[in-house]
């Protein structure tokens, strides 16, 4: 189940954080499951670092199926 970051809040402990998140972030039926994490436990990459972090993947085109030329006569591939 994929979870999307929706925001932050203050709470005394994890159980209250879930309850508060339910109250603050799901008044319009936005989801079926909530994760809460103390902000000190999060390590985030910076959007500025996007290029050095992800560029190596962009130029490895051979990871994509369309890179390969398989004749149309060959089926099931």
């Amino acid at each position, binding site marked *: 189940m994929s979870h999307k970051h929706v*925001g*932050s*809040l*203050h*709470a*005394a*402990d994890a159980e*209250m954080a879930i309850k508060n998140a339910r*109250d*603050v*972030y799901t*008044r*319009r039926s936005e989801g079926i499951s909530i994760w809460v994490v103390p902000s000190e436990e999060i390590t985030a990459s*910076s*959007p*500025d670092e996007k290029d050095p972090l992800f560029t190596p993947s962009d130029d490895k085109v051979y990871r994509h199926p369309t890179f390969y030329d398989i004749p149309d006569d060959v089926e099931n591939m």
Partner: protein
Amino acid sequence: MGTKVSLEDKFQAYVDAENRVEPKDWMPEKYRKTLIRQISQHAHSEIIGMQPEANWITRAPSLRAKLILLAKVQDEAGHGLYLYSAAETLGEPREKMIADLQSGKAKYSSIFNYPTPSWADMGTIGWLVDGAAIQNQVMLTRTSYGPYARAMVKICKEESFHQRQGYEVVMKLAQGTPEQKAMAQESLNRWWWPSLMMFGPSDDNSPNSEQSMKWKIKRKSNDTLRQEFVDKTVPQAEYLGLTIPDADLKWNEERGHYDFGEINWAEFYEVIKGNGPCNKERIAHHVKAHEEGAWVREAANAYAKKQADRASNDASAA
């Protein structure tokens, strides 16, 4: 032969290109400070704004009306919380913002310093006050600071029911008995001008606006937003057969906009200064709730600590 580009110039170019400023980005100290002020005051407005409306929850005329009003007030609480979170990304702790509100150092929207003596006000507020807020908040979905803009998107989605809720209440009254229609008109008479004041001083009397527009915090001027609001709202009042209390209100064919009368700026500045009808009451109520609720915060923290201590004792004993 390079030219030295200052951090400020780089920042300005970044903002000019319609990029979003995020919490970890370098920003001028003034940009940070003005946003902390603006976002926290926006948050305070939402929380204080709960009070004039909560006034009628126990006396709503039907169960349906009560449920809807409760939901609206609950939304305002949520909006305040989103905005406190957005302001915290700029490095200001929530406790300080709340202390500043309670001491009178921080401001909030002047509109919430007016009382709500009639049920019709529950309609008029949703229609005009939320209407004006929507005008401003839609503009702010394009503000340069990322967390603020994203909070605005979420808030705008939720705000649209607020205005419709309000208009529905006014409509029921305006299309009801003569007494009900009179109640709606009386309410409109009191809320029209304060709603126009929500957009702030006129452009030539707004010294902060220029820098705010330059940094794309503000995307449209006070007078532009105010004019848009008037143009949208006049037909809505006409549809209900209600009269806007402005003898100078008139469609101007040449401009393609409504001309309207001069705002009483003396009243505006008095209310901002703290001399509005309900300023003291609003803050006193906030302080009282905060103080009377302290035991809940203390208990929650004590319980959390006890559970954490218990868990670490079990872990070391095992």
